[in-house]
């Protein structure tokens, strides 16, 4: 361990602002990128599910329609 206390670890020998600014912004941008990937995956799956449900409904109503026609 290069630092004798947590205070001096945060201070980084006077360069604390620059070191923690770098690592903070770096971590934040990586997290944002990660979140963006997860978020677009969720949106994609939801859209796919909706489209699939719509297709099933269309097929079902077409089959019903055919039945009605044959009765008439």
């Amino acid at each position: 361990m290069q630092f004798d206390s947590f205070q001096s670890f945060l201070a980084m020998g006077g360069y604390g602002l620059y070191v923690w600014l770098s690592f903070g912004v770096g971590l934040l941008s990586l997290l944002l990128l990660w979140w963006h990937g997860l978020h677009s995956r969720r949106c994609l799956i939801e859209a796919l599910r909706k489209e699939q449900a719509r297709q099933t409904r269309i097929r079902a109503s077409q089959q019903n329609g055919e039945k009605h026609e044959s009765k008439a």
Partner: protein
Amino acid sequence: MWKWLHPYAKPERAFALCTTLLPWFGVSALLILATGTIWGLAFAPADYQQGDSFRIIYLHVPSAILSMGTYSAMAIAAFIGLVWQIRTAHMAVAAIAPVGAVLTFIALFTGAAWGKPMWGTWWVWDARLTSELILLFLYLGVIALYQSFEDKEQGSKASGVMALVGVVNLPIIHYSVEWWNTLHQGATITKFAKPSIDSSMLWPLLLCILGLALLTGAMCLYRLQNELLRRESHRPWVRAMLLEEEQNAV
């Protein structure tokens, strides 16, 4: 080898391969990156000239190396996509570009935050910094060009050409510190010479590079899966996979 490699160009095989690889990349990336960063920040000795400000190297150098490595990977994918017309390769370009742009941004930002205390300025228009900024614009250009086309096939061709042209910038970035007089210091690690850094500082740096590389790989794999889902949404394999997931969830 080609016979063995070729089936993975098929979207559903590529998707399955990503699913298999992702946990390995993700877990090892987090472990190695955490070890390297904590080692570098708390346990590596301070620099005799730059004091503790040198610790920014543990984010700056990995992100800078990977911003260029990721660009090469993207350009190779673009080349494969354009020459052999493999759609999965085009999707890889679209998946890699945002990851590379973020890495380039981190390299530029940490460089600025390191430059302020050491050079007395956040930014200078010198060769290394300017060429890295151009790399960021190249990434953004590839993303924008891809997004601007309604037809994604056309979009990937246009952005692929742009990615290939931009390769010229890579050697310029690499040799900029040798070709021009610059504030930026020379390379810390080279293949041919003994590294100009003590091993107590070098080991955490190598861990950080490896960890960030694995993290980059994980992010690219995940985004490639997104891209596959987006562009193959009407294909039966996507439908079958969704159904299977629903049945497992119930």
